[in-house]
């Protein structure tokens, strides 16, 4: 469909945001944004981190009230009515459901409990479990999950939980489905499935609004794209009348750095060596691997392939069998000891395992450094401030304020703070688990730059990533895991997305080239 005039031919208007703004503690997160949401249409919202996407989603989802502007509901007769939503429950009653960026399902509930949370079916206060299970099963099937609704949520992989969240939204008979970065934690074929489901929902007449950092999927599924930058609406593009370069230019407001040539490391000495390391992964398979000084090795694989378990074992966070050797000597067990030896990890879930949420960016950054560089237990505060400033500069953390509370930073900048924490101890081994999950294009390039910088300084880098683009862009060598074991290695020059995927899905093991 080429450029569609905004009248007769366009699908029915259901919701309109009129000049909505929002300030958080002195920061203008959203500034006078107006947008129309139509039934049977997929609207993509793109922008860098901190552009105001999440805030816009939260306003539409009723979680945050706009400090200026308002929402309008468009009735069947075409008449607009101003809506004042106080909380997700009211939004749900108005037919609007929000799926959050962080998957925060109650881990101890079963699927029925989660899907119907807040919408339980009861007879005089007594839960009607049979009816609930039936309704939950229908909602789960709509997102392609054929599962026992009594399964406990905490036991599901992250991708499935994302789908459960969507099922939960659908169970409220939502007319408007708002998804905040639904694909950020999904692997590529899980993403395919999600996008297919979104397409089906569009056919059913649901208005889908979703945020994503991945422009390729945006361009595949969306009917319309709006671009936000610094809280303002920078452009609105329609299917058929857009180009990737145009969207990127609107998002970043500057040129995105191109792929940089890799430093050659073929003859550098081995820095990290794993000998028959058996991790907590359920298959208990031994893994052997070595990484040279300055080398960046990507760990590719599907969710559950054992990448996170392997990184956690090397970092000393979980017990393992076998030996982890650093510069030819075995390192003792336990996180504190490994950090002292210069093995540092960026965890997969930055909110749970990374951030001191109520602390300043500076305190977050210096956390590892103070232990390694203390003077008889005293924190050298001037040196600490200098170290923090340097880390902020190296990671290009914005705003460059050490005093700023870390929870007020955008996801990408929170990630930079944790990366800065690791770089601060000049690590010999840098372990990165999904370093750019939920991070926008600009910040991703800056994080990549910092990672390359650490490698150039002699660190051995292991990156686990679900994003093929990132794997191909960053690594000297790609190690593919499947079901807890290494199933192949590809050199950067020989790797293609298809080759990696074939290995990762357990196919064509024999065809893999040994590097």
């Amino acid at each position, binding site marked *: 469909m080429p450029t569609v005039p905004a009248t007769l031919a366009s699908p029915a208007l259901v919701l309109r945001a009129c000049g909505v703004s929002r300030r958080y503690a002195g920061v*203008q997160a959203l500034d006078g944004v107006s947008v129309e949401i139509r039934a049977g249409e997929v609207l993509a919202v793109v922008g860098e981190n901190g552009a105001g996407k999440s805030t816009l989603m939260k306003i539409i989802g009723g979680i945050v009230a706009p400090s200026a502007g308002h929402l309008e509901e468009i009735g069947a007769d075409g008449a607009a009515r101003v809506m004042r939503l106080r909380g997700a429950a009211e939004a749900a009653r108005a037919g609007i459901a929000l799926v959050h960026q962080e998957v925060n399902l109650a881990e101890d509930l079963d699927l029925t409990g989660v899907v119907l949370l807040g919408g339980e079916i009861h007879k005089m206060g007594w839960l009607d479990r049979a009816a609930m299970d039936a309704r939950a099963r229908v909602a789960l099937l709509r997102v392609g999950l054929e599962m026992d609704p009594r399964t406990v949520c905490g036991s599901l992989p992250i991708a499935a939980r994302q789908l459960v969240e969507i099922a939960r939204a659908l169970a409220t008979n939502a007319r408007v489905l708002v998804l905040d970065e639904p694909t950020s934690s999904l692997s590529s074929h899980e993403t395919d499935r999600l996008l297919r489901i979104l397409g089906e929902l569009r056919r059913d007449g649901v208005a889908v609004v979703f945020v994503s950092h991945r422009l390729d999927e945006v361009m595949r599924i969306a009917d319309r794209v709006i671009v936000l930058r610094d809280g303002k609406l920078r452009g609105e593009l329609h299917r058929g009348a857009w180009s990737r370069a145009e969207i990127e230019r609107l998002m970043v407001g500057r040129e995105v750095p191109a792929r940089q040539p890799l430093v050659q490391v073929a003859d550098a000495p081995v820095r990290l060596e794993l000998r028959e390391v058996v991790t907590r992964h359920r298959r208990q398979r031994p893994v052997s691997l070595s990484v040279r000084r300055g080398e960046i090795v990507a760990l590719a694989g599907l969710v559950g392939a054992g990448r996170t378990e392997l990184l956690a074992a090397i970092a000393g966070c979980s017990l393992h069998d076998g030996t982890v050797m650093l510069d030819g000597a075995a390192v003792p067990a336990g996180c504190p000891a490994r950090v002292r030896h210069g093995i540092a990890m960026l965890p997969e879930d930055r909110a749970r*395992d990374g951030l001191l*949420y109520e602390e300043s960016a500076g305190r977050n950054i210096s956390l590892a450094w*103070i232990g390694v560089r203390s003077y008889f237990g005293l924190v050298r505060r001037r040196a600490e401030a200098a170290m923090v400033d340097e880390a902020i500069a190296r990671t290009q953390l914005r705003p460059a304020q050490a005093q700023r509370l870390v929870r007020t930073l955008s996801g990408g900048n929170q990630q930079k703070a944790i990366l800065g924490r690791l770089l601060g101890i000049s690590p010999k081994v840098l372990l990165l688990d999904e370093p750019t999950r939920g991070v926008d294009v600009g910040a991703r390039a800056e994080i990549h730059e910092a990672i390359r910088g650490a490698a150039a300084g002699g660190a051995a880098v292991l990156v686990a990533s679900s994003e093929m683009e990132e794997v191909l862009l960053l690594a000297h060598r790609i190690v593919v895991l499947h079901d807890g074991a290494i199933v192949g290695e590809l050199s950067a020059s020989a790797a293609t997305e298809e080759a990696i995927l074939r290995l990762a899905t357990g196919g064509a093991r024999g065809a893999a080239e040994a590097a």
Partner: protein
Amino acid sequence: MRKQWGLLAVFFGVALVASVFGSNFLSGYNLENLTNRTALFSILALGAGIVIAVGGIDLSIGSVVCLCGIATPWLLVEHGWPAWQVVPVVLGMAAAIGLMHGLLITKLRLQPFLVTLCGLLLYRGLARWVTGDQSQGFAGEFDGLRSLALGRIPVPFIEGYRIPATVIPLAVLAVGTSLVLTRTVWGRWLLATGSNESAARISGVPTQRLTIAAYVACSLLAGLGGMLFIFDIGSAQPSDFGNFYELYAIAAAVLGGCSLRGGRASVGGIVLGTATLQVLRNAIILLGLSSQLEFAVIGAVLLLGMTADELLLRWRERRAERRAPSG
């Protein structure tokens, strides 16, 4: 930080009411008593604050006060041990109790609430059993030792007010704790552990050792507090000495800005929280209110103060939002 402003307002509010409507609130003698009580309870509250900062809780404080407090005259008077042996033995016992709590909580991953609740029962039971439930006292002796709590240090040029001796250990401990928390790696680690244990461990913080250290510090302070309390009151009954003191300590620490979710502690706030509680209790008598009303008044004033504080904060946030120019 913000919590302390509200607390300071409550503190001065109560003091103002007591000095205007009560009699002799500002007399040197009364201030002396208030300082002494604040110092004694602050020592307990400091320990509670440290454990709360690391994300734990200690419900056994009152019972440790009892066990260590009772053991001091029991060893000195009944068994005739010399003081230079009794003090280290009693403090060692307190530290061992804390060590046990810490090990059970970190190594066996038992719930702190449960471990210390069992401690609450265990230590009081022990104290009652070893003493045969007899009240223990100094029988008019050991004035030298007791002067650690009863002593008063005259202040030059000020008449009528002498500094209670208990201020000395409190000052040393408060300044020490404050320095440790703000200036040393261990303090930072302690707060980081309370803030997000997983993140701290991944960043190289020996979180288990810090948690254990926090429980040891708490029990040690409770043990020291118990000794000073019994020096102050002279004798005590194992069945009721120190009852509910853990609640006073925890309340003071939380009032003073320690978050029960961990990661926050302010030594100044803890002492101020304790002082507020003590001034409130004092004011009830000086104002001639019925002593049956004591708990009701304390609860109501603190609840009002905290509510007003929260409302004020929200109002300020909303005003800041409206005032700020867009763009």
